């Protein structure tokens, strides 16, 4: 039981890590950020 609980915590940690890796590495997130900055710049000035 204890092993299962530890394993689940491990998988949850890996999921969080995986999402963080996505946020840090994804070209889509980067392109989104660049596009939002471009549009904001266009809108403001």
């Amino acid at each position, binding site marked *: 039981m204890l092993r299962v609980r530890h394993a689940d915590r491990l998988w*949850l940690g890996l*999921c969080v890590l995986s999402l963080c890796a*996505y946020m840090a590495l994804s070209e889509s997130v980067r392109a989104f950020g660049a596009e939002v900055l471009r549009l904001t710049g266009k809108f403001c000035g």
Partner: protein
Amino acid sequence: MQVVNVLSLLLIALTWLCALRAGYRLSLRCGVNESASAWALACIPPTAGLVCAVHVVMTLSFVTGAAVVTPVPIAVAFGVLGWIGSRVVGRLGGDAQNPSAVKEPPSAEPRMGWLWLPVLCVAGMYAVFFVDAVTRYPTGYDGLHYHLPTAVGWMRTARMDLSLGLLHQSFPENGMIVPFLLAFSKSDRLLTLVHLPKALWVALSIFGLARAVGVGNRAALLGACIALSVPIVVFQSFSSYIDLYAASAWLAALLALTWVARTSDARQRRMLIVLAGLSAGVALGSKTTFLVLVPLLGVVAIAAARMSSKDAVRPGSSPVRAALWFGVACLACSFGWFTRGAIQAGNPVYPLAVEVGGERLLPGVAAREHFPSRPIVRKLARWWDYPWRETKHSGTGYPYSVNNAMGAAYAAFVPVGFVAALWGFITRRERTVERAWMLIYAALSLTGMILLLTLFREMLRFVLPLGLIGAVFGAWLVQRMVDRHPRVVPVLATVAFAVTAAVAVLKPAHALAGRIRGDVWSRAEFYEMPAEVDDLSTGARILNLAELPATYPLYGEDLDREVITALQWEAMLSGRAMSARSLREHGIEYIYLRGPCPNDWPRDLPVTLLGGDGDGPSPRSCVEGRIYRVAESDRRVVHLSAAPQAGPLSNDR
């Protein structure tokens, strides 16, 4: 629009709905006692029935040589097939109240709670895409280049002939049957939503596939959301690509096979295998890549037939018989394309060449002629971190698109879920049906990865159904974690889905805002064409020398013109240079151009600028889209074929 066509389309819609209802009852009779699965399988009879009806009429047109592929014979064939289907189901016996069809008792599963937030993120994302889609015209490079023009070509000629030598116009196109029928309604705005129901079908199938491995309703719903949040899925739901159409049918076939192993009655098993075969046939007739993916389902069908459910009357059934039923049903929804290829090209799988040991046995094109080949090590280096990087390896532009990206929710849950499942296989030795299906899903996912790097030449959307199976591993992992971490898992899921939704909706929201701000609502403005394009006469014959996706927009709102692409024009010229004579010979009335004129554009071409910016009749540097009218005296009135080898296109209908 002719009244008889309107009535036929209404009859087809009515038959479809009746078949859906009958399909649901059939699912219950087959012992499918879980609602999402029952509805997913209920979609198979109407979808397969319509496809089969079109194939019957299409084959009739090949055999008789008559142009009969119109809504009237299709409605009749669909009605007859529906009647035959209802008789067959009636003979199956039993009713919705049979013991194996009793609804599952309400489970003691906890309520959704905060898990509704990820569902709301996905719903919001689809709402933005929906609003954008209903206020615009069809989009998608492949769709505008050849999928939709093929459907319009069928509508204009009442035939579904091959275009020998023209690769793109010769593919199997089950996915274009509904757009073809909608083309008779002369409203191409409807075409933007045509694949949206397929996304729902995928969601139902993924939910059912997750339930088949023992996942509860909450986690299965999250699995369906993971599949729906995949950018390729959401973008293709509102685009004219057909990968989603084929993937939805393929996944429904896999779902039917999971139920084969869970039902006890031999007749129910046989019926489920037939349903799986029909759905696999719909996928097989949608895209040539399914010549590889559907046989995988054949293997699964054999495995499913061998599995015994807990309360099976007799263990398993003959794999040979299962394969036979599956194969025959499969051909019922794809035979038209094979017949067409065999009759018109001497190769049932045309345009795919058949080669053995480097020697070409049957005509066509090989994949290597169109896709670059790289060393496997380089491919691995490009793809090992794909779910997190989402590097666009094919095409350009924004990373989230119809052919790229899997999304943050997929990246967060699926790779970890897959590894956790593999770890479970190694560390625990159980013999349950659920575990067997997890193994089958894992094997299919691994096969998808191998196919992506080998046969499918790194085209991610070609392995879409195998990639979407990954959502089941995500659901399975959420199931494991959510009870022990009831707060953290919903927060993690909400963040992941919110990120995917935000990145995905940027493009449609921006495009919609741009259209509102610029008051861009006309077809010509939307496609960035001169306004004169909207006003060309019915039946006008237009030569498109601009980019290939300009082909569909040039058909006009009523889809009543004839468009010849640059590739078709090249075939028509057969090596000669473009001249006043060639325009006259082929009855070209208008020429559409964008960018500099072609190098072989003669200075004395008898054309006048009708619309768009240009510095005279033969500008060399203009980048705007422009339409030229060919001088009246220099063209014949008689129209020839757009596809020279495919028989004449008649303009008198």
